[in-house]
């Protein structure tokens, strides 16, 4: 894979924690790769597995779900629901031969702007290593 490959990431960020962290990262003028597009959701627990599958099948290189730290969910237990769903989803991805490493679930609180920037950087790097999502080749976008 050529080194100038730029992966596309779609991220679903919980409005209370990780979305706030992304906001703060911006306010703090932090620098991180522009590869991740953000879709704001109320809670990581509201992320339907189809929201993850659809972009992957459409050829996006990675999906990031960001939620509050365990115990800190604004809705008490939404992040636990997300955790269960994503574990199940990854098992399905794995069983049908898709790379479950393309889906990241991370806990990033509103105060952790640096961690958000770091996570996006790491994910971009990791996906650069992996290269193009093979789905992109099967279904032309």
């Amino acid at each position, binding site marked *: 894979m050529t080194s100038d490959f*730029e992966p*596309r990431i*779609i991220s679903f960020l919980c409005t209370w924690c990780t979305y706030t962290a992304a906001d*703060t990262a911006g306010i703090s003028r932090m620098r991180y790769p522009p590869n991740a597009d953000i*879709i704001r959701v*109320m809670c990581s627990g*509201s992320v339907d597995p189809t929201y993850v599958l659809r972009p992957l099948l459409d050829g996006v290189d990675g999906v990031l779900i960001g939620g509050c730290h365990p115990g800190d969910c604004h809705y008490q237990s*939404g992040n636990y629901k997300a955790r269960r769903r994503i574990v199940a989803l990854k098992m399905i991805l794995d069983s049908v031969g898709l790379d479950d490493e393309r889906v990241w679930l991370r806990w990033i609180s509103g*105060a952790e702007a640096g961690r958000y920037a770091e996570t996006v950087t790491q994910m971009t790097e990791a996906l650069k290593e992996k290269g193009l999502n093979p789905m992109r080749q099967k279904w032309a976008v």
Partner: protein
Amino acid sequence: MMDAGRHPNITLLSYSEVEDVSGYVGNFEVKVRRNPRYVLEDLCTACSLCLEVCPITLPDEFNEGLGTRPAIYRSFAQAIPSVFVIDKKGVAPCRDACPTGQRAQGYIALIRERRFADAYRSIKEDNPFPAVCGRICNHVCEDACSRGRVDEPISIMRLKRFVADWAFEHPEEVAKAFAPKIDQDAETPDATGKRVAIVGSGPAGLTVAQDLKLSGHDVTVFEALPVAGGMMRVGIPEYRLPAEILQREIDEIIDLGIDLKLNTKVDDVVALKSGEDQGGPFDAVFVGIGAHSDVRPPVTGVDLPQMLAANDFLRGASMDYYPDLIGKKVIVLGGGDVAMDAACTAVRAGTMQADREGGEPPEVRVAYRRTEAEMPALEAEYTQALEDGVAFDWLVSPVSVEADDEGNVCGLSCCRMELGEPDESGRRRPMSIDGAECLMDADVVISAIGARPNLESVPEVIKRTPNGRQIAVDENTMATSVDGIFAAGDAVTGMAFVVDAVGAGHKAARAMHAYLMGLPMPGPEVKLPVADVSDEEIEARKASGQVVEMVRVCTLEEVDAGERIHSMCEVTGPVSEEEAVEEAMRCLQCGVCSECNQCVYVCGPLAIDHNMVEEHLDLKVGAIIVATGFQMWDPHQLSQYSYGKSPNILTGMEFERLSSSGGPTGGEILTAEGKKPESVAIIHCVGSRDHNAHPYCSRVCCMYSLKQAHLVRDKTGADVYNFYMDMRTFGKGYEEFYERVQEEGIIFIRGRGAQVEVLPDGKLQVRGEDSNLGRVVQVDADMVILSTAIEAPGDADQTAALFGLGRSEDGFFAEAHPKMRPVETNTDGVFLAGTAQGPRDVPDTVAHAGAAASMALALLDKGVVTISPQVAVVNETLCSACKTCISLCPYTAISFVERDNVARVNEALCKGCGACAAGCPPGAITARHFTDEQIMAQIEGLLSMPRVLVEA
């Protein structure tokens, strides 16, 4: 603050903690625990008289530990509400263990302060017989004493004896201690005109007599014997409890104005109440007849003349009547305290007879059916018996008392025993060994195997306990089955200790007073929480040197055994004043407040209630403002500042107290040596702007350091060196103040103070870089002030969980938006004020708090709450009634409607998290404004955009 405290619309719940918050904006339910203050807020006038009498000394937290305060205190003079509070962890274990509730920690604290007369009053509060219980108590308090986990328990009983003996020798000082110290609102109650008869003048009867007399009732005590005191007088031998000492305490009670009728046997307690032949009728009768009947051993020969009951023997001895014991072989049956008393009394009586009339002293043996280990007698009594020359035969049980031809006792046939399985008392049951009989020589046999009440005078109409041996009573009121007749003491419990009878007597007296006055009868006693000193705390105190392992100071001198058996003189000698004070110092003060009651005696408005318990309030509120503040960062964490190594290295807060006119030196700036400092260094940014501590700027330190520099210069004229990194004078008028301080001749060194060294002579030396000069500077100082950081309180985690708050990276509570919403939080209806959100000075805090109040008012004033439109909705035609959503909703906003067989969302409760929408198998639920279509459209939109990467 005063205004807030007085405002009619503000209820101040001080000394309280929020335990739980539920509900939502506009409809919060808050559970609040009000800790017991032990002072009634509406009565206390903050007159401070209690401060002077409290014997407890504790470090004063408000003065940063630089001064001390008593257990009853007010944090500072301007505190709101202006009332005192008692620092009490709970009832001390010693008091909790004692049946009379004796405030042992209280009188021990007073002994430590050498206030013996006050200690005596404290003891008499719960126990009318200090001199008695100071000698012969079973002292369960000492078993409970926490000091026992360090080395040995405090000699509580002996300290009581010391106080009682001291009080007898200092009647004037005692009278002064008991004299009213102030006009108290409640005075001695008027005579009620109610008449009470008390049958039996033992510890229970006399306690009831005292209590009821003090409540204003007319009390008559009937005693069958020619002496008062019950078992204390005729059951406990003279050498353990001199009759003269007992009589002193009895006289104190009788002198209250009680009619004591000695030699007056009551034949029927029910008839006594109604009849007129013995001075009746009475409004109430108390039966305290004790347990004076012997339990006879089931052996043959019990009717022989030299076969004695211990009770009869001891009763006779107490009135100087002894059988002839010269040269006799005496066998005492039993292993309890009474057996020891009988044996030792027999030794003394026989020896004294032999001394007088010539002949050999008696040979006394105790025969017990178990072994030494199971013997119920107190160890001290057993040891004394051994010293007195009493011999012991273990594992023998009497079978028959043998008589000679003239019908006199000549021996005791016994059966050898062995120990079997433990019985219900936990002791191993003795079992006879078949055929293992033995004959012991004996001229006199004294049976001390128990006693029971003689219920001849108690008619059958008064119910008995199930075993038929004692009087049955209600455990809360000590009332018998007959109206107006109460009972307590050995007559109810069987043989027990003086403190048990006194405790039960108090209980009976309370109930009888209620009965006589037509008040509601007392229910079960409220069990107050017991203060426990944990093992960790003991270890910590040992480590800090506060507690040093040592042996008991109060080791009582005993009269030598060879000497004491020739008379009935008291065996144990007195406790000296020095010993008592030193022993009292060993107390760990488990309860903090010792409940000595001294504050109660001086409180004019009767505002002190030591029995207060915590209260729980359920409040309904519309909005919550969290203003939990900050804590000072602990400079021990950066060792280069040597904090704690010299008393002249202070934090900014400590210096603040030192320079305050309400502080420990009255506002004089003095070193620990009491001298005015000549050179003072102030180090800024200790713990702030430091990646080894807190990276943030604490904001307030520059200005308070400047103020403190000004104060030092102004009050002492000392040289002041300020080590600063940057001077942050961000507020209105602040820069002008900085300039003024510069003009006062204060020296500013730009650079972090790097190190404080304590020199061997105690002087301090501060080093740091002066970055303006580019070289290291060194300053000698008499005092160093560390301008320490402020940080989020240690319990911010719990507070955050309670109110649903987020926290920023610095640990303070997170506002909803750093720029646009600085007082709101992510939980609607919960606002932040002051340093709870981040470091700020007073003007900024006031502004922030004002904003929080406005936000809350705006919310409440509307009367209605605007909720977010982002709620979940169910498409009922798609709903498959699987109920998955119901378990997914953390707010119980979704209910299942049986009639329509669908799930339905309560929009007022729904918070819009969308968990149900994501989990709904048929996709019937959508989260408004975050529908699948909207999300998918966003995904598609993003994917359709050409990837343009912008490198900023």
